[in-house]
């Protein structure tokens, strides 16, 4: 599946934007957001601690994420904390996909890609990311935080593909002599790429002025998921 950045709105983007907006309506009605829901049952938020510690499963168990705040390291000037998102690429191997910076009001700021040593695990090729998105469906009603993360991944699929491509290109600059393995473990290389998130404008782009055939397609897809 090709990256979709800069192209016309795809039905899949419209569909997932509708799903995400619906979920956000529910959160808005409770004056909440995904991070607040995730932290609802903790006593005191602590730096460096993972929430939840074992990771939050979503995407049919093929995706996993946790939220944490660093005391000294920040990926964005306005960052409160960030999610790390991993995907199961088989043989119990979890590959890091991206980080998701969150501001102090629970809004997504940016995606970011870090070097391999930061998150450990196998290195995820760009194309594998798009393939792993197939596990994210709209059938996780009991997991609003996972659904929110999955929805964001889906509506930002093009940006994330570009982010991972930029990550790889940046890494190539450090490993021109073919020493990729060395670059992946180089402690001086931390952040490799970022991609800003404009959630409101992305939803507007995907949902406003929707051509009738695209909206009809989204309806059909939605009905198909309902009958699953």
């Amino acid at each position: 599946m090709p990256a979709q950045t800069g192209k016309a709105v795809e039905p899949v983007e419209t569909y997932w934007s509708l799903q995400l907006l619906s979920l956000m309506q529910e959160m808005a009605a409770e004056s909440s957001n995904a991070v607040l829901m995730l932290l609802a049952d903790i006593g005191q938020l602590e730096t460096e601690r993972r929430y939840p510690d074992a990771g939050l499963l979503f995407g049919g168990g093929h995706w996993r994420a946790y939220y944490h705040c660093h005391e000294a390291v920040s990926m964005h000037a306005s960052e409160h904390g960030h999610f790390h998102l991993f995907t199961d690429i088989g043989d119990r191997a979890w590959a890091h996909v991206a980080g998701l910076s969150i501001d102090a009001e629970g809004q997504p700021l940016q995606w970011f890609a870090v070097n391999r040593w930061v998150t450990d695990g196998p290195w995820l090729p760009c194309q594998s990311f798009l393939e792993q998105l197939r596990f994210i469906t709209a059938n996780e009603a009991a997991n609003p935080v996972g659904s929110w993360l999955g929805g964001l991944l889906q509506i930002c699929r093009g940006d994330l593909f570009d982010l991972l491509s930029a990550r790889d290109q940046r890494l190539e600059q450090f490993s021109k002599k073919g020493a990729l393995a060395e670059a992946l473990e180089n402690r001086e290389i931390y952040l490799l790429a970022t991609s800003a998130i404009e959630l409101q404008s992305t939803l507007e782009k995907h949902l406003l002025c929707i051509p009738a055939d695209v909206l009809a397609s989204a309806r059909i897809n939605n009905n198909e998921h309902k009958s699953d």
Partner: protein
Amino acid sequence: MNRKQTRIVIGAAISAAAIAVVVDHTRQRLPEPEKQLASQQAVIIIDEGEELPAESDADCGKPTAAGRQASPCSL
């Protein structure tokens, strides 16, 4: 996902204002993080009669979870 609400969204005319209201109402202040009170990696439980780590021949300078120390954001 609440399917009833999904139908409402699809059936309604979606406007920029409606999207803005939804996004705005999810802007809710997050709790301030406190410096980690006690790292799990730092907790050592010594049973009665067991020698203290400093008294053993083991390499106490080596972190118990070396992988996590080396990769601060691993699972």
